């Protein structure tokens, strides 16, 4: 198929349809609403289920119900809406049913604004719902990558009976780019041996997240833990740029990684040996590649559109061997490549931050740009 001009949100919706999406449940919230709007037309024309729910709570629990039948099902929302869905996500995780959730992130906390941000990283990767549960989180940086990851998200969710979140900032959702759609896949009855779809000619089944006996819950949590080890061993994905001879490395996901790439290219044309690592799976996180890089580069610069959330994961992999600098914009502000380039110049000149948490000196450096006045 040839490339067409696709808006990120609509591309995600169509890519999900082509991956065999059987049901979508959602609620309007900017900047992801086009996913809901697109599917409100597309799903019924294919005879598939679409419901605009009464709330994100309703939507995620509809997803939960449909997921229990073994159907390919998803929802999408933006930051405040995803917060409301955390209850359902925890239950879906505890019940071990597959589901896909897209978060087109906006500025926060609270109502925040509708501009692009990456400040739900910790919620998606490290927390959110209650209880011990793993989840796969994919972070596309372009419309094409978002399309490609939608198909993968369903496959991973089903393979590991796990939530797969796709997190992108509002700019990827709202941007139009040339992109190629995959072929339409037929809907397949995957005949999962756990699905509660009516006990016709078989023993009845129960799906629940209850383990009233604490040792049984412990067994279940260990089962999830073991499955997560499989995911970590097999599903880490990232993209590397100019790493072979890099003296220091920028780490950024999604749009922040993409903006950093422009800066890295300019720096390279100036002869600065800087590379870029862009995690595609932020959960499981590419700790190993960062661990290896930490053995041979002089330091890292983490760039994010938040106050430094993925930063902690990079530091975990680096284990104090080399400095890890931070540069971010937050609250819905997207960094320009020149800002990252300025950081590259500072680091190339040997000005590494010396304090325990370089996010402190970053905030000090930003004082001229970001002021209460």
């Amino acid at each position: 198929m040839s490339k067409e001009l696709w808006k990120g949100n609509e591309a995600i919706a169509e890519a999900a349809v082509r991956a065999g999406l059987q049901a979508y449940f959602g609620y309007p919230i900017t900047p992801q609403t086009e996913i809901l709007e697109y599917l409100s037309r597309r799903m019924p024309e294919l005879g598939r289920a679409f419901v605009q729910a009464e709330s994100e709570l309703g939507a995620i629990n509809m997803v939960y119900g449909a997921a229990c039948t073994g159907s390919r099902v998803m929802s999408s929302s933006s930051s405040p809406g995803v917060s409301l869905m955390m209850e359902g996500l925890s239950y879906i995780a505890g019940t071990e049913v597959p589901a896909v959730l897209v978060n087109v992130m906006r500025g926060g906390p609270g109502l925040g604004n509708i501009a692009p941000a990456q400040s739900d990283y910790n919620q998606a990767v490290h927390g959110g719902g209650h209880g011990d549960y793993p989840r796969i989180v994919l972070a596309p940086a372009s419309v094409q990558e978002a399309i490609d990851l939608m198909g993968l998200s369903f496959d991973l969710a089903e393979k590991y009976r796990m939530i797969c979140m796709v997190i992108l900032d509002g700019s990827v959702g709202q941007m139009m780019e040339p992109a190629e759609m995959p072929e339409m896949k037929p809907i397949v009855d995957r005949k999962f041996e756990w699905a509660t779809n009516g006990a016709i000619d078989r023993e009845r089944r129960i799906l629940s997240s209850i383990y009233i006996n604490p040792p049984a819950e412990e067994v279940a949590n260990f089962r999830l833990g073991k499955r997560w080890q499989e995911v970590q061993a097999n599903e880490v994905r990232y993209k590397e740029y100019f790493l072979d001879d890099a003296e220091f490395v920028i780490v950024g996901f999604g749009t922040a990684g993409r903006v950093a790439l422009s800066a890295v290219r300019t720096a390279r044309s100036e002869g600065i040996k800087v590379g870029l690592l862009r995690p595609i799976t932020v959960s499981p996180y590419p700790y190993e590649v960062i661990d290896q890089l930490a053995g041979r580069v002089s330091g890292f610069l983490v760039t994010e559109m938040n106050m430094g959330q993925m930063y902690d994961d990079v530091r975990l992999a680096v284990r104090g061997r080399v400095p890890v600098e931070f540069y971010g914009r937050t609250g819905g502000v997207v960094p320009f490549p020149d800002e990252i380039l300025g950081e590259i110049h500072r680091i190339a000149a040997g000005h590494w931050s010396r304090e325990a948490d370089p996010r402190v000196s970053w905030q000090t450096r930003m004082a001229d740009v970001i002021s209460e006045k």
Partner: protein
Amino acid sequence: MTTLAPNNLVYDRPEGFTETPTHYCPGCTHGVAHRLIAEVLEEMNLIPRTIGVAPVGCAVFAYNYFDTDFVEAPHGRAPAMATGIKRVLPDRIVFTYQGDGDLASIGMGEIVHAAARGENLTVIFINNANFGMTGGQMAPTTLPGMKTTSSPNGRDVETQGYPIRMAEMLATLDGVGYCVRRSLHDPKNIRLAKKAIRMAFETQARGLGFSMVELLSTCPTNWGMTPVSSLKFVEEHMMPAYPLGDYKVGAAVATIKI
């Protein structure tokens, strides 16, 4: 053990039940409500096609007792989960079983909108005027003046508001095909309740919209009463506040003969 000849057998476990004994307190009417549902599913030959949705509350383990596929919802979200199931499997029978804390308090949004959308679901709503599982706190359905562990001086309507009449409220919605209130306090009313449950499942089986049967029920343990005085309490205090009746019987539903 003596085996009874079939012609002498007057009472047996319905096919819709598993052999698991229920965990309900002595004198509680959950068991009666469960049995009526199981009998109706058996009579309508719906057991293999049925998927139940259990609530959070005393009936949280309902899935252990019905011999059908079952899922267990987050507190109050059973109608949303049921919507998800029914929308991808429209030829299955999907029902939720919810108490008053679950349905009328935390799950108010989900139940109202499932009804408003006219989801082809059946809801069995147990109204026993308190949160049973957590030890008898005030529910939206608690009667004015009624003592609970969170209204120790009796529900004061000035500060704690008034009871919600769910059957009357949902009956105002166009998506609802069948919405009635019955009681489980005596054999006659139990028979009428069963007929209503049958009508609710018939409504769903014919695709005639949302159906709900509200059942006035007892909670002897948390009410601090004997089973017998609990049944009297339903008749003397619950029924005046929650009148039994058919609040909505859609035109097409009214033609169903059972």
